[in-house]
């Protein structure tokens, strides 16, 4: 008798109970669709118009993209991204990995060291940039200090040298991120079965051999995670440039994000800014899509 009456009595409540999960997720989902993907689509459309200070909606094809790639600052920005991104990712991973391996040797002060290495990650890029600006400033920082010790001819002026200034970005960014990479690697190293290391010892492998041949190959997922986290950090880098070099000397250290901001909000070139933003998105996609594709395919095989 009750079998029938319960669903019949409160159909609304029953419907609610069944769909509560969907209802809870729906608002965030709608907001995300609108603000993230909606605006991506809008930016994509604007990049195909001749919008200046205000958006115009007359379709003009790839006019802005052709203009963009003819501009020297944009080409400098993309070149800088290649140098900065490449070095930043490579050095952070290598350094982070080495630090993690060093800490994995049961160092006594491990807790303290781990915190010291990890803390830079908690600082915003603005602070990092400002601090490194002072450190690298020839009149204030390292150069001045070394000269005051008596080495008068010492010169470390990368910050004001348009050839080398982009490498100061690498120094500051590596300082900030390698501790985070270390934390990821350390966690993964702790997950390695200690019996594997013992077995390799008995097999006669040296410590460097054990890490190179046995342990690091098993950390492939960590390498990939680090690579993607650092890549997106590199592509969206904006504040570090603003704080550390201000894009200078000249425009020698600008990155695509700085270029986009400059064009969109300072020079009333919304269309050009949108085109550069879409190019940045394309850069990230070019890296992420093959990764997602390979990951999803691997899942199917298991």
């Amino acid at each position, binding site marked *: 008798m009750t079998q029938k009456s319960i669903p019949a009595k409160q159909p609304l409540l029953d419907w609610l109970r069944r769909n509560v999960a969907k209802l809870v997720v729906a608002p965030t989902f709608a907001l995300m669709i609108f603000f993230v993907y909606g605006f991506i689509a809008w930016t994509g459309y604007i990049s195909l118009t001749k919008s200046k200070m205000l958006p115009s909606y007359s379709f003009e094809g790839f006019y802005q993209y052709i203009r963009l790639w003819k501009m020297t600052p944009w080409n400098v920005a993309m070149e800088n991204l290649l140098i900065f991104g490449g070095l930043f990712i490579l050095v952070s991973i290598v350094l982070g990995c080495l630090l993690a391996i060093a800490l994995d040797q049961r160092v006594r002060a491990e807790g303290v060291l781990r915190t010291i290495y990890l803390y830079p990650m908690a600082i915003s890029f603005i602070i990092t940039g400002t601090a490194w600006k002072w450190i690298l400033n020839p009149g204030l920082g390292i150069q001045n200090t070394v000269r005051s010790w008596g080495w008068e001819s010492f010169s470390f002026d990368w910050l004001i040298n348009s050839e080398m200034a982009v490498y100061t970005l690498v120094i500051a960014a590596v300082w900030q991120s390698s501790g985070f990479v270390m934390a990821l690697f350390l966690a993964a190293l702790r997950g390695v079965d200690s019996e594997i290391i*013992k*077995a390799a010892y*008995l*097999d006669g492998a040296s410590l460097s051999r054990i890490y190179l041949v046995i342990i690091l190959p098993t950390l492939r997922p960590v390498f990939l995670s680090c690579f993607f986290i650092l890549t997106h950090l590199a592509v969206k880098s904006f504040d570090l440039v603003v704080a550390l070099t201000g894009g200078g000397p000249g425009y020698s250290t600008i990155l695509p994000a700085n270029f986009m901001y400059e064009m969109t909000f300072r020079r009333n070139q919304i269309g050009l800014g949108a085109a550069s933003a879409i190019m940045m998105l394309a850069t990230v996609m070019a890296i992420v899509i093959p990764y997602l594709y390979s990951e999803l395919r691997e899942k199917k095989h298991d």
Partner: protein
Amino acid sequence: MASLSIQNVKKSYGSVEVLKGIDLDLENGEFLVLLGPSGCGKSTLLNMIAGLDTITDGEILIDQTVVNDVHPKDRDIAMVFQSYALYPNMSVARNIGFGLEMRKVTKEERERRVDEAARMLQIDHLSDRKPAQLSGGQRQRVAMGRALVRDPEIFLFDEPLSNLDAKLRVEMRTEIKKLHQRLGTTMVYVTHDQIEAMTLASRIAILKEGEVQQFASPQEVYEKPANMYVAGFVGSPPMNFVPAAVVSENGKLGVSIERTANGSRGSVFLALPEDRQDISEWVGRDVILGIRPETLTHCSDSEMSLNNRLQAFDCQVEVLEPTGADTLTYIELGGREVIARVNPYNTTEPGETMAFMVDMGKASLFDPKTELRI
């Protein structure tokens, strides 16, 4: 093949003493099982033999050479780990051959030996697979292959079967036994499973809290346990412990036990055999009588007349647990629950009184204070 000698070996971590002076001597080709509960120090001892753990005090000798400060790879030992410890990124063949690779054995020689070991363990069809693609039993075989291919002086096993299911465990146990018989290499095997210890060992060392309780052949450990701990640890179901008093009756020494029969409480006298009459100083004192379940069974007159060490008594049956071959019969002796192994066709109903006989020649007596064998 090599002999192994462990002399007064101690291990402490800070103020915690894990091993309190272990002495073990092993002949060429023996199979030693280190048996004990978790935390008794058996794996630590094995790691020390392997050289993976430092020795706080004492000496370990392989073939009369002190190896305390010899690097693990130079001790000529191979070890099989509990988690198998296979290198996850290498194929089965490379896993097995890695030790040879590190020892700079030529490629042809390496391939020949890997192939030989793989065929011996029936895993030659798996040589291109990665460990993740193997079942537990196959991984176990690869781990053994890795040890085997090195042709070491001593094999060490650290609870190698504990990650396998029951059926596979029995299979692999036999496999290890066969391997030992074929190779004749000295082996040291750590386990907490007393059946593994009994079936594999030529000698068992039972450890508890960092001390060797008994070091003897499986049969001796089973029949003449050195103390109540060993007696209770080895054998399934475990040995029955019955509080008893040593008394002299009709010029013979024996034990007196309280029990209930036909609804009334009373004591029964069980005489000790001729060769156990040497305990006159214990007369009038309490002891613990240890009886294995299979030496306690239903009374049979024909057997009683053949063997004068058998002693009969009657007792009320409490619970019956049929296992097929035997029925485990629970009775109460001296206030303790006691298990007897009875032929299923000779049991009575619970609550009724039944005649039992016990082989006093196979019984053990323990001092209730020190828990040592008398």
